[in-house]
């Protein structure tokens, strides 16, 4: 029997793609445009430029250039970060032409055609990209064609945020709804952004792609055909695109919560000695683009849900310095746990803490649902992270750890403002991994960070339950 090894979070990355043109094929905008075609014009009028997306404080926090607590007062959309850059310590914000090129590179079945001027611009930009060796943009030539001809054959039209025609995506199979162009578009956007996150992680941390033995996909998209709708393995598709030739992979599905069980499974594989290095990758969710656009239009704001977010992490054997993933007490929402807010938090937070002999005060930072409230509040969905942190603080009050007057301090000290795009699984703690790794590294401020996520299983109509899971990251040798 191999001895149990301590798994650590070796590295994490976070990337965005600014895709205001793909926004109109997000689930909600597409449905509304079908009812009222004039909406297209309003979306174009209210779209953000790339510079505005780069200078947006929550996006700078997403790529690690600033901490979420350093974003400054709201609103952020009309007060851009001075000197905000496309590339940050944890990844980048990719402009839409290049990202369309990346989607075409992800498309091995030649379904996507880019208009010549868009394809050429994308190829030229990707040639200059720091990851050009891994992404192989020279292959883009094959994707440059006549999208109008494709469009005439019933393909899905692709546009830039400006409204300019960018290309077309053919259906994968005329009789299979699971391979419709709209589905392929979602899956290509997911694969391309996930591969971009993993490729950045490998380069930024000087990790040999061949050292990755397994890639677990935890994206929201379902890859498959009519006989296996959620057949899967975005993980392996991303491994291939990111150049991890020695890896195989599989997917973990659990609605928005998926990244946390994926991380726990990755850490368990390492602990058991099955693999030495396992990557966990969540690509961007195209259906969620523009999900709450009506609120933004109503409040005369730019349509801010115009960016895909993707996150990658590598879990490895103990290197003596990276944060340890505590597998001895993970939080999990059991079938018997109960559905009240308190029952969920007991299962996810206080039960594992009790098991370790710790209290809520022993966790320096909680990473929970970190949706940017500037995206959710205009549509009446409130401030999700603040609500979560207040509930955690209320747990402390109910357990007699501190008085009600200390709740606000608890929220300010151990919580943080939401900064993630409304990309479900990415916003659910996963987006904070790279920040957490920094906070737990030498010179960092934290000793323990709890990562927790919840998933709305009931949306799939197979159970009335939700789910959730959590784990604690701990400073190595601390």
């Amino acid at each position, binding site marked *: 029997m191999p001895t149990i090894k301590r798994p650590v979070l070796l590295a994490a990355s976070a990337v965005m793609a600014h895709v205001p043109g793909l926004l109109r094929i997000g689930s909600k905008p597409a449905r509304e445009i079908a009812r009222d075609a004039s909406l297209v014009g309003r979306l174009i009028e209210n779209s953000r430029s790339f510079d505005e997306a780069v200078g947006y404080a929550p996006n700078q926090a997403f790529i690690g250039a600033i901490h979420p607590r350093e974003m400054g007062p709201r609103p952020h959309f009309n007060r851009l970060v001075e000197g905000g850059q496309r590339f940050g310590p944890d990844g980048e914000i990719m402009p839409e032409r290049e990202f369309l090129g990346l989607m075409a590179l992800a498309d091995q079945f030649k379904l996507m055609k880019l208009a010549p001027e868009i394809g050429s611009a994308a190829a030229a930009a990707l040639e200059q990209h720091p990851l050009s060796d891994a992404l192989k943009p020279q292959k883009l030539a094959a994707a440059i064609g006549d999208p109008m001809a494709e469009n005439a054959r019933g393909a899905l039209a692709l546009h830039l945020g400006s409204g300019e025609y960018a290309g077309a995506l053919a259906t994968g199979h005329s009789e299979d709804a699971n391979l419709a162009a709209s589905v392929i578009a979602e899956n290509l956007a997911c694969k391309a952004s996930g591969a971009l996150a993993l490729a950045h992680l490998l380069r930024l941390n000087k990790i040999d792609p061949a050292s990755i033995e397994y890639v677990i996909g935890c994206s929201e998209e379902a890859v498959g055909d009519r006989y296996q709708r959620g057949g899967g393995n975005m993980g392996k598709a991303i491994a291939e695109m990111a150049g991890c030739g020695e890896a195989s992979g599989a997917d973990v599905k659990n609605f928005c919560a998926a990244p946390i069980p994926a991380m726990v499974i990755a850490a368990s594989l390492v602990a058991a000695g099955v693999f030495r290095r396992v990557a966990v990758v969540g690509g961007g969710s195209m259906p969620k683009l523009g999900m709450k656009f009506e609120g933004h239009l109503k409040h005369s704001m730019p349509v801010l849900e115009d960016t895909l977010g993707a996150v990658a992490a590598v879990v490895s054997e103990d290197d003596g310095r990276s944060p340890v993933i505590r597998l001895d007490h993970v939080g999990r929402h059991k079938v018997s746990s109960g559905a009240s807010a308190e029952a969920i938090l007991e299962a996810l937070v206080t039960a594992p803490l009790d098991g370790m002999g710790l209290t809520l005060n022993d966790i320096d930072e909680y990473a929970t649902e970190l949706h940017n409230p500037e995206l959710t509040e205009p549509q*009446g969905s409130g401030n999700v992270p603040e609500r979560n942190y207040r509930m955690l603080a209320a747990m402390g009050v109910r357990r007699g750890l501190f008085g*009600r007057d200390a*709740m606000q301090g608890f929220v300010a000290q151990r919580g943080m403002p939401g900064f993630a795009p409304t990309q479900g699984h990415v916003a659910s703690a996963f987006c904070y991994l790279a920040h957490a790794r920094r906070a737990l590294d030498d010179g960092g401020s934290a000793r323990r960070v709890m990562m927790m996520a919840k998933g709305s299983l009931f949306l799939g109509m197979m159970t009335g339950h939700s789910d959730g899971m959590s784990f604690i990251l701990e400073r190595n040798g601390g």
Partner: protein
Amino acid sequence: MDPHTQQTIIDAVGKHGRDNLIVVLGTPSPEAAAIAAETVTIGDPTYAGPLAETRLGLTVYHILEEQVRAALDPAIYDQQVGLMAESLDMPAIAAAVAGVRAAISHEGK
């Protein structure tokens, strides 16, 4: 309130009659509570669902309002709702829903 939920409420009214129903909201903010309360009384103010311009005039309360709490078993209430009562802005939510009720009763007169 999403269109599916609005339809569920319309169906319930058809089945049980409006006088036999009370809507108990669980929305986490005063703004969302007011919108939901309006939706089931004077109609969906966001015009997003089948209750747009439909006056159901249902009786509506929020789970965090005193009248609801007083009507329920204290132990079960604490177990199921206690944490939310502790963490949400209970007075503002109660005031928002009471405000909608008051406006409607005033209109009725």
